[in-house]
């Protein structure tokens, strides 16, 4: 079986439209959340969002291709192009049939859906745009990445709500580990900051109603009351170790394990005892061939909803045992980016990998009031310098989807 390493990273995020800007924001505890500008959210009492700023798709990809995409696809393609460039893969030197794409989205082209459904109502059934279907379908981000990069191997999208990005990375890992591909572009993309997307989550009481961008996304804080919607994409280049060594690629980290489970409990609420997420964490630890105590850092799902953060805390205790859970560092970078839904697991994998590489743990900002139901070490408010060996990346989605990936620091030797 092949070992699998990370050789390229790409990100479009509320903290910046490159991995360098994203990581610089995270490791300095900078908040990427600001006032909601895309529409007036007053009627649903939503005032802030993690919006992507200064993004011009036509500057980073073929103009005509960009025009044919919903923003979720544009973000995904832009992140994929950055990741491929970063990996220094020469498409003429590799076997394109052995390079695949698994990039998912929680929802897909929701902007195209909203626009065209309004148009259908206003102008009639026969006025729906021909680009509606190709822009809206959730798999098109993976299709467009294949078109933009030349990857001709396995090409698919995974839809597991907020776990989509992390499930995509995990399944891509398995594709390489078990020999179906040498290189996989894996991650997630989302662009749901629009009227229908935000109203839908607001109707579930899932969104923060705070007007202050610096107090709205408050993971693990006692006063947390909902998540802040974010948008963007993350894409990782996963590669077999043999392929990476052969082309003398820069290696960021190794992916050593993956766990995927279903809660079998409720459509939107996580199982309160955290058992579903805990089983996924245990699987990822077991596949990595390590013990719970070897996990140094967990990038939590940490949405800032009342239900998630306490049940995820329980899940970590259940998976690691009380002793290891008490000493592991846990942070939610959603405190700085908001929640990118299907993109979350992907940018948070990048955060975990950079933490391993640089020995800096990104903080959970906006954490001022401790909650007795959230009693772990959350790297509160300030980044922490700490050399770490293993990191878990947790993503938990509506539907009870739990995805956990495990990354190991790359020591520049086999």
């Amino acid at each position, binding site marked *: 079986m092949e070992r699998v390493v990370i050789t390229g990273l790409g990100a479009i995020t509320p903290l910046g439209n490159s991995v360098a800007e994203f990581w610089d924001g995270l490791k300095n505890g900078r908040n990427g959340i600001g006032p909601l500008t895309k529409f007036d959210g007053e009627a649903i009492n939503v005032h802030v969002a993690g919006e992507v700023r200064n993004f011009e798709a036509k500057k980073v990809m073929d*103009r*005509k291709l960009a*025009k044919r995409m919903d923003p979720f696809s544009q973000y995904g393609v832009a992140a994929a192009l950055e990741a491929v460039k970063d990996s220094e893969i020469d498409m003429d030197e590799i076997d394109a049939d052995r390079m695949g794409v698994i990039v998912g989205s929680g929802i897909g082209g929701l902007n195209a859906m909203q626009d065209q459904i309004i148009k259908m109502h206003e102008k009639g059934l*026969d*006025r729906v*745009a*021909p*680009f509606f279907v*190709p822009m809206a379908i959730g798999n098109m981000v993976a299709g467009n990445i294949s078109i933009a990069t030349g990857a001709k191997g396995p090409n698919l999208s995974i839809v597991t709500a907020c776990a989509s990005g992390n499930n995509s990375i995990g399944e891509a890992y398995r594709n390489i580990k078990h020999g179906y591909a040498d290189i996989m572009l894996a991650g997630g993309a989302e662009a749901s900051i629009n009227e229908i997307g935000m109203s839908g989550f607001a109707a579930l009481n899932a969104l923060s109603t705070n007007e202050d961008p610096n107090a709205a996304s408050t993971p693990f804080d006692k006063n947390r009351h909902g998540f802040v919607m974010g948008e963007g994409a993350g894409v990782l280049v996963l590669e077999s170790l043999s392929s990476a060594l052969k082309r003398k690629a820069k290696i960021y980290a190794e992916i050593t394990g993956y766990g995927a489970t279903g809660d079998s409990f409720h459509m939107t609420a996580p199982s309160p005892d955290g058992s579903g997420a805990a089983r996924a964490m245990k699987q990822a630890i077991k596949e990595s061939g390590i013990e719970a105590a070897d996990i140094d850092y967990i990038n939590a799902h940490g949405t800032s909803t009342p239900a998630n953060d306490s049940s995820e805390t329980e899940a970590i205790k259940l998976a690691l045992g009380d002793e290891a859970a008490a000493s592991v560092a846990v942070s939610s970078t959603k405190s700085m980016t908001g929640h990118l839904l299907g993109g979350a697991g992907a940018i948070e994998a990048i955060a975990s990998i950079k933490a391993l590489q640089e020995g800096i743990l990104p903080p959970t900002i906006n954490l001022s009031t401790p909650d007795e139901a959230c009693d772990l070490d959350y790297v509160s408010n300030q980044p922490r310098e700490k050399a770490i060996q293993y990191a878990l990346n947790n993503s938990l989605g509506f539907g009870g989807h739990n995805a956990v990936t495990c990354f190991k620091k790359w020591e520049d030797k086999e």
Partner: protein
Amino acid sequence: MTTFEKIQEIIVDQLDKEETEVQLSTNFREELEADSLDLFQIINDIEDEFDIKIESEEGLTTVEDLVKYVEGQIES
């Protein structure tokens, strides 16, 4: 804005071309490399702009064909 200018603007925007490349005699399928998706979208945009219905794209090969078709629809 004349009918031609409006149609020119739609085609320029959809196909990412320069205005000078889109003239009355231009064959948009061959000279502008419009694929079937582009063509459907251009027709959809023209329908929106002029509030008309283009039943079939058959016989529409040049920009002038489009202009004449649209002007015929508006008059009737």
